[in-house]
C-alpha cells in the first residue's frame, strides 16, 4: 500500500492545482468518472505516521476544499495499494460519492463544544448517619444531577441551532453529555461564505460552561457514506 488518500473532489475544477504531498512526496490525482482522488504516493510506506503527518493531511485537505469548493476528506490514515485500486473504489461508489459532494459543495464545518466549568458531584447530605442511607442518597443526587445536566446540555445545543438560524444551518450533528466533563459537542454545516459571521454570532459567555469554537474546517463530520 503506497497511496495515502487525502480526499475525493469534483474533477472539473481539479485541473492545475499544484500541491505537494506529505513529507515532500508527490501528490497524485486519480481521475475517474468525473471525480478526482488525491493521494500522496510513497515509494515506501512509512513504518509509522506522526502528528506532523496528521496536520499536513489536514492542511492539504483544507487547501483542496477551499480551491475546489467541495471535498470528501478521507478518514486518516486511508491507504490504497495503487492507482488502479483507487479507480476501482471510485467506480464502485461513484453515485454515493457524487451525492455526498453535492451535499457539501460551498459549505464548511464549524465545531462547537461546551465544557462544564464545575463538577456535578453533590456533597453528601448532612445528618445521614448510616453508610447505606448515605450511599442511596448520593446515588439519587447523582441521577438527579445527571438529568439536570442532560437537560441543560440539550438546551445549549438548541440555543446554538437557534443562533445559527435556519437560513445558515444546513445540517447539524450533536452529542449531548458525551462524557462527564463535556456538556455537548456539535458539528455545524454552514455556507462557506457565512462561516465567519456564524462563528461570531456563537461567541458568548455562559455561567456554567466554557464554549469553544473551532473551524471552519473541511466537512469531516458530514461525509459519511453508507
Amino acid at each position, binding site marked *: *500500500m503506497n497511496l495515502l488518500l487525502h480526499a475525493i473532489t469534483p474533477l472539473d475544477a481539479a485541473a492545475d492545482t499544484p500541491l505537494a504531498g506529505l513529507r515532500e512526496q508527490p501528490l497524485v490525482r486519480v481521475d475517474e468518472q468525473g471525480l478526482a482522488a488525491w493521494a500522496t504516493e510513497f515509494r515506501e510506506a512509512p513504518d509509522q505516521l506522526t502528528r506532523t503527518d496528521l*496536520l499536513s493531511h489536514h492542511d492539504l485537505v483544507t487547501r483542496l476544499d477551499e480551491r475546489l469548493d467541495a471535498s470528501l476528506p478521507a478518514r486518516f490514515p*486511508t491507504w490504497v495499494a495503487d492507482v488502479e485500486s483507487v479507480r476501482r473504489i471510485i467506480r464502485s461508489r461513484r453515485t454515493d460519492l457524487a451525492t455526498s459532494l453535492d451535499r457539501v459543495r460551498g459549505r464548511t464545518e464549524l465545531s462547537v463544544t461546551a465544557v462544564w466549568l464545575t*463538577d456535578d458531584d453533590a456533597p453528601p447530605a448532612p445528618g445521614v448517619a448510616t453508610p447505606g442511607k448515605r450511599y442511596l442518597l448520593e446515588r439519587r443526587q447523582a441521577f438527579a444531577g445527571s438529568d439536570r445536566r442532560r437537560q441543560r446540555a440539550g438546551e445549549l445545543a438548541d440555543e446554538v441551532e437557534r443562533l445559527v438560524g435556519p437560513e445558515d444551518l444546513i445540517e447539524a450533528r450533536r452529542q449531548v453529555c458525551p462524557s462527564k*466533563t463535556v456538556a455537548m*459537542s456539535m458539528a455545524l454545516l454552514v455556507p462557506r461564505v457565512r462561516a465567519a459571521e456564524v462563528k461570531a454570532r456563537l461567541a458568548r459567555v455562559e455561567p456554567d*460552561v466554557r464554549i469553544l469554537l473551532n473551524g471552519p474546517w473541511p466537512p469531516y463530520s458530514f461525509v459519511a457514506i453508507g
Partner: protein
Amino acid sequence: MPDKFASLSAPSSDELSLLELADRLLNRGVVLTGEATISVAGVDLIYLGLNVVLTAVENLRGTREPAPARDHPA
C-alpha cells in the same frame, strides 16, 4: 473574573484545537477501504475521543489562567 469564552481558530497553535481536529481526522471522514494498517505515533490516545478534550481544556487553563480547584477533574 476569568474569561470563560475561548475562540480557537488556529489548530496548530492550540492543543485543544488540535485535539478537536484530531478527533475528526481520525474518527470521521469518508471511509473508502476499511483499512488502517499504520498507527499514528503520538496521537493514538486522541482516538479515545471527546473525553480527551478535557485534558486539553485543563492544559489550556493552565497556560492562560489559574483554574480554581473545583474545575479540575476528579
